[in-house]
């Protein structure tokens, strides 16, 4: 059909319609209308809606915010026709903590304690992006051992986050044993974290200037025992889930997203990679020492739920590879920058030197000042591109600290993914998008 024939007269006058072949997926998604635009607050009284109900009336239901299947306090308003989801709207804000405002009240030394609680499944990544941004503004050099320790810890955190995702994903798709297995593996990594950082979760370990403490004695054995057990266990889970016909029927072909739509919706991480775009910040724009380690970027082909599951599972194996290389290549040296204004002195020096005592006191009470400027730093967290936009005004506290949470942006691609599927598919899709509400709401 020519564009002349496609010109249709609408209630708003003549409107020129594009050829269907020329309409890109983005315009189609906006035209199709998978986003449900209705006020979120008060419950609607059906008597207030001035619509004639026909034979095929649709039902608006609410899923969440308290629901065993949503990952955290996510509320989704869905318009259903029978059991098929037509339009949907994710409603967030149930975990809004004012962390960006709190970040303006805390010094740079304390900032990591605040930022780490955003994405609580991979806290070290949040700390890393904040520290990298602060260090970029400070203009200091980080010693190589500190860089490799950070890489080791964040890759272990990626493994624990993906294993946790496999556990909760398995449970959402009715495999409770996967939940128990996943937490068993996660405990191995968490006990190593407890040994190194002092806490199982929300460690305040990666700070501007380096890391808080050196790796404990015997860490090579602990880490090697982790990377020797986990790939074997991942093969078991592979057998448990991938080969299982029910799991395959529930995930294959469900929630397909095309690469153009994913890019337009600013989706990053496993969602983008599963749809076929080979974008991984560790490979494309390397930070830390990722250009010195050898690993593959896992890319899917179809962009459905099964692909996202396969991408995450194989990323566990790749992270084990990276951790092995970190153990082999770990350089000796300082674990934090020897800049007296930024990093505190070792505790033993405080008894000997007055200057050390004063530096320690000033750093922990007042913090250090960062020269005025602004910077945007981004790293690859297990959920996608985690960015930190930091504005400094020359004082000891950030003027504006904005964290670009990957889950916040990935949730926008939820309505197109849910459209046309059943409610049971909705559970599988939400689980595969892997939102962590801490970084969605901040």
């Amino acid at each position: 059909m020519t564009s002349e024939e496609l010109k249709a007269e609408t209630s708003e006058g003549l409107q020129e319609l594009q050829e269907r072949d020329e309409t890109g997926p983005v315009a189609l998604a906006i035209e199709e209308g998978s986003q449900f635009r209705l006020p979120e607050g008060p419950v609607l009284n059906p008597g207030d809606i001035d619509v004639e109900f026909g034979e095929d009336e649709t039902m608006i239901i609410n899923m969440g915010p308290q629901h065993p299947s949503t990952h955290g306090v996510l509320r989704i308003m869905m318009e259903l026709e029978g059991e098929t989801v037509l339009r949907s709207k994710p409603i967030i804000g149930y975990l809004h903590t004012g962390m960006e405002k709190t970040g303006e009240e805390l010094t740079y030394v304390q900032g990591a304690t605040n930022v780490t609680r955003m994405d609580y499944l991979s806290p070290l990544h949040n700390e890393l992006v904040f520290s990298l941004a602060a260090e970029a503004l400070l203009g200091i050099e980080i010693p190589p051992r500190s860089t490799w320790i950070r890489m080791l810890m964040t890759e272990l955190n990626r493994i624990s986050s993906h294993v946790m995702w496999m556990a909760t994903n398995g449970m959402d798709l009715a495999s409770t044993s996967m939940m128990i297995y996943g937490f068993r593996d996660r405990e191995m990594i968490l006990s190593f974290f407890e040994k190194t950082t002092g806490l199982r979760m929300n460690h305040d370990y990666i700070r501007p200037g380096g890391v808080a403490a050196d790796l404990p004695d015997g860490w090579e054995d602990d880490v090697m025992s982790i990377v020797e057990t986990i790939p074997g266990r991942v093969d078991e889970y592979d057998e448990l889930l991938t080969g299982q016909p029910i799991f395959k029927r529930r995930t294959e072909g469900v929630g397909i997203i095309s690469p153009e739509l994913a890019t337009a919706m600013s989706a990053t991480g496993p969602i983008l990679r599963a749809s076929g775009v080979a974008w991984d910040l560790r490979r494309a724009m390397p930070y830390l020492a990722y250009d010195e380690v050898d690993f593959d970027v896992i890319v899917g082909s179809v962009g459905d739920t099964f692909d996202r599951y396969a991408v995450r599972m194989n990323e566990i194996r790749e992270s084990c590879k990276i951790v092995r290389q970190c153990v082999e290549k770990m350089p000796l040296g300082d674990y934090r920058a020897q800049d007296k204004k930024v990093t505190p002195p070792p505790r033993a020096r405080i008894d000997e030197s007055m200057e050390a005592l004063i530096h320690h006191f000033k750093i922990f009470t007042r913090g250090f000042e960062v020269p005025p400027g602004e910077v945007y730093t981004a790293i690859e967290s297990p959920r996608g591109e985690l960015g930190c936009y930091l504005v400094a005004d020359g004082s000891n506290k950030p003027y504006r600290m904005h964290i670009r949470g990957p889950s916040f942006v990935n949730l926008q691609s939820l309505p197109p993914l849910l459209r046309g599927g059943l409610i049971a598919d909705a559970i599988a899709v939400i689980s595969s998008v892997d939102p962590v509400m801490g970084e969605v709401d901040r």
Partner: protein
Amino acid sequence: MGLEDLSHNFLTGSLEELVKWARRSSVWPATFGLACCAIEMMAAGAADFDLARFGMEVFRGSPRQADLMVVAGRVSQKMAPVLRQVYDQMVEPKWVISMGVCASTGGMFNNYAIVQGVDQVVPVDVYAPGCPPNPQTLIHAILTLHEKIRLGELTRRSPGETGAGIDLAAEPARPGWVAPPSGVRLGTPR
């Protein structure tokens, strides 16, 4: 009703013990995991720190079937009415454990967005500190609750019992703060 007026003698005394034993041996929690503490709560339910040995491995999705609400995580202003609604839907006898410092007092987030202590919205039985509390701390809190059930009376809250120590009627309304429904006593100041 019947049971409250009964003063216990040796016949009904052992019945009371039996009922309390049954109640504390199978406390079923409702899923109310909000933030980081929820992950530690799940870890407490998993294999390493098994909650099933206390009869608590079934996390009921529906609050109507649950006895215990573990408020695990920070409660924001938007979430407080939902919390109250879920609590109201639970059937007596019900208990609340406030897990973590954010739920107990607001934690490190002393700002506009977080309710400073979940006991401003629901009455709390046991507070578990930590950020996040170890699964062992959570289990200690659960065992404390079991002790409370064992030593407490069969009937639930008596009118003179103090709760958080905040007189809600005197509390000035802050923007966005949702008051619980009228007629609910959440404790009187000491």
